[in-house]
């Protein structure tokens, strides 16, 4: 459906320096899927989105939607944003304050190439307003709407022209935490219901994991990893992705030997010997980093059976209601574990950490990534 290949977008900033916002960005989004560009601020995700929208003119690359080329540097094609027929929701919602709710939504129908009768316009507007649950506010002034309502209004306006592609630029970042959670479900429900191909930009990993079919993690203009939410979370390809998506413990490690099983290694880490599994090839003596999520570390007061058991001492405990964060000292090294709140070992007592080898993600020490960053 959407194909972006070898996209480069650069622009000069206020001081005249060239900002390399998007560098060699390529991805494909199948029909009806929600694709997320995830990354820290300034990573080029918004620029990539705006390049797809046509609001930025890329330096080179190709963008095709539904086999129609909207941008191609080779063929010298650039379709103006107002001719692309994409729906877009801006971070600020960009609700026009001088129009009421109805007119905001009707605007795309009034200015489009296809003309609608007033009756048709009203039908379309009211249908999309009721889809987002705003039908009773049609005549209200747009600025009188609350944050969440403005957000839904912006979505309605983007949907009313039945776009081929929906572009969402951090649509939830201006809402408070509770509302954000609710709108996250709403968005997901509507996207799945309409089956609209959607590009979603966010810096919030929770949003990305919750909403997406597929996620591209970006940093410094480059796409670092593309994969399903599970792949991104469970199998990050490097330290940056592991660190940016979720919390993790990084343990510096050296490969000792490869086990009998093909993907299993024995490594010596700063907290002791571990058995880890990895799909990547490592040789004996290679330096690596083992990433272990806090929720994948089990704590026991008595030494359990099995592999990867390490002794430590409870250093610090934070009770957070649904779970408890426990900082354990292993030698001089702090390790964070997230355990059930029923675990009550007091501070200072020895505990045993148990880590499933499947949950130890071994990644190459990120010399390469550090160079590009």
């Amino acid at each position: 459906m959407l194909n972006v290949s070898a996209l480069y977008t650069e622009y000069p900033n206020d001081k005249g320096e060239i900002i390399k916002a998007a560098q060699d960005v390529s991805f494909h989004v199948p029909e009806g899927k929600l694709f997320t560009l995830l990354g820290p601020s300034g990573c080029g995700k918004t620029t990539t989105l705006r390049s797809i929208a046509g609001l930025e003119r890329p330096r080179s690359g190709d963008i095709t939607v539904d086999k129609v080329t909207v941008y191609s540097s080779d063929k010298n094609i650039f379709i103006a944003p107002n001719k692309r027929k994409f729906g877009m929701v801006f971070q600020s919602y960009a609700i026009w304050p001088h129009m009421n709710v109805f007119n905001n939504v009707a605007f795309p129908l009034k200015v489009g190439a296809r003309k609608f009768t007033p009756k048709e316009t009203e039908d379309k507007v009211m249908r999309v307003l009721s889809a987002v649950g705003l039908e009773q506010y049609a005549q209200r002034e747009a600025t009188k709407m609350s944050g969440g309502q403005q957000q839904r209004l912006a979505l309605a306006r983007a949907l009313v022209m039945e776009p081929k592609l929906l572009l969402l630029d951090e649509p939830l970042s201006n809402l408070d935490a509770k509302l954000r959670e609710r709108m996250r479900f709403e968005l997901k429900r509507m996207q799945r219901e309409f089956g609209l191909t959607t590009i979603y930009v966010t810096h919030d990993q929770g949003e990305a994991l919750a909403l997406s079919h597929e996620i591209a993690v970006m940093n410094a203009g480059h796409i670092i990893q593309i994969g399903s939410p599970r792949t991104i979370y469970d199998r990050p390809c490097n330290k940056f992705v592991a660190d940016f998506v979720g919390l993790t413990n990084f343990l510096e490690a050296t490969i000792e030997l490869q086990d009998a099983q093909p993907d299993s290694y024995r490594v010596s880490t700063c907290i002791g010997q571990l058995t880890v599994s990895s799909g990547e090839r490592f040789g004996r003596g290679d330096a690596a980093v083992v990433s272990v999520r806090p929720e994948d570390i089990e704590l026991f007061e008595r030494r359990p059976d099995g592999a990867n058991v390490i002794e430590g001492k409870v250093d610090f405990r934070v009770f957070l209601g649904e779970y408890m964060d426990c900082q354990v000292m292993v030698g001089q090294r702090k390790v964070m574990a997230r355990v059930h709140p029923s675990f009550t070992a007091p501070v200072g007592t020895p505990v045993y950490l148990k880590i499933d080898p499947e949950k130890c993600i071994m990644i190459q020490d990120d010399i390469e990534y550090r160079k590009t960053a």
Partner: protein
Amino acid sequence: MNVAENIIAAPPAPPRSWRHFDFKWIIIGACVALVAYLALMPLGFLLWQSFFTPQTATKAAKFTFNNYITAYSTVETLTLFFNSVTFATGTSIFAFLIGTALAWMNERTNTPLKSLFFALSIIPLIIPGILFTVAWILLASPKIGIVNLVLQSWFHTDYVFFNIYSMWGMIWVDGLHYSSMAFLVMTAAFRSMDPSLEESAMMSGASVPQIAWHITLKLTWPAIFATLLILFVRSIESFEVPALLGLPVGIHVFTSSIYQAIHHYPSEIGLASAYAVTLLLITTVGIYFQSKLSSQGSKYSTVTGKGFRPRAMDLGKWRYVTASIFVVYFALIVILPFLVLLWSSLQKFYSVPSMKALSNLTFDAYQFILTYPTLISAVGNSVLLAVGCATMVMLVTSVICWIVVKTKLPGRWLLDNLASLPMVFPGLVLGLAVMIFYLNVDIGVYGTMWILFIAYVTRFMPYGLRYNTTSMLQIHKELEESAEMSGASWGTTFRRIILPLLKPGLLAGWIYIVIVSIRELSTSILLYSPGTEVVSILIWELWENGQYVELSALGVMFIIALFMLVMLAQFVGRKFGVKEG
């Protein structure tokens, strides 16, 4: 009983000191009374005077409609009204068009030389209206105007290309002078608009003209209209241009007619008052709608995100065209006026630039001015008035502002409006009102420096209020409350917490008021008497005497002094991080 309780209970709570309580109310009461007195008294007497015959030693004042009848029964008044409106409308539209075009070039295109645009914000401060007008007379008067003479010698004709002594000339000079104000206001309007409002229209499929009409224009309409209104008000109350350019050829507007009515012999105060009341009505309506529109503008501010600054439009080769437009504009508003003053200040008798005149350069005019008998006292008066007025205004308005911003006192909105009321007074009308008041209420200030001081404080009170409000809003209520919890009285809190925190704003406002008071002309012109002249009055007198060369020398020194003051203000502003309101 445990120890902690003991400590808390130990010092018996002192009875609330009535002196501290009173002290607070004395200061607040004095400030409120002063503001009410300054804002309302002259206005009341102006209205009163317009319905009465002048009081003399032999005749008591009598109620009459004659002033209004004289003012409104003649065809001249119709012409007067027509002239005023034409002049103000022309000026505001001209200034608006220039200002908006420049603001657009600066904000939305990649025109080179952008750093020069910064200068636009200080030019109106460093070149006072009277000098700007005089400079343009030297440039474009039919007889001695350099531009005319140069063009005539190029084309070998005696055709007068530019006649500054005309309605068009007045609009040209005043419009240029106010264009930088239009530029500043429209720049703010361009900046405050979220670019994604236009981008979302683009994504909805709207074409560029559709966006310009449905979104950009309709959204900026309140700002445009408010800008036009404030420009209209400023130009209908401007005095220097109509007096210097209009009066010699008989083009009368309200301000110049008020001046004439007073300076006639016998002076017709009642008639002047009738004109002044009309003018005041016009400016009040203008300011009222302007402030209403401005507050309506905030209705249009929606949630804003991190906001992608709209990327500057690439004009390609056209950017050299826009840059040259800007250079021409800069020449018209700063370089030419300053150079012509500089040139004429170096002459013995005014003459047009030529090789012969070049050999006659002399500093005689500077010597003349520096030894001019009234110069020392005029400079002294100006400095004394400016410093005194600025100090007084900033202190009084800081209290007023505290009441308005920080307390829940009923009727504080009224106080805010009272202190802002002088904004609607054209300078000349304020001068007239103050004059009438102290002619009738003889407390010995008429003819002294005090009357100028009172008028200046009244006139610049709204500026002080604006500066103080901006910085007062940044002081969190808890800073005061914690001082109170530490045991400080209101006076101590105000002196030790609020004033020091306000200091950057106070200082910036103080310097600004010093600058505007030093160049004040239209209020002083009705209130000065021999011995209390200020510098701008000295310039006015030199002009009336036809001493152009000496005037130019004084003007050049004046501009340089103001320039240094403005630079100082900018420096202070940057150093203390003052955001101008």
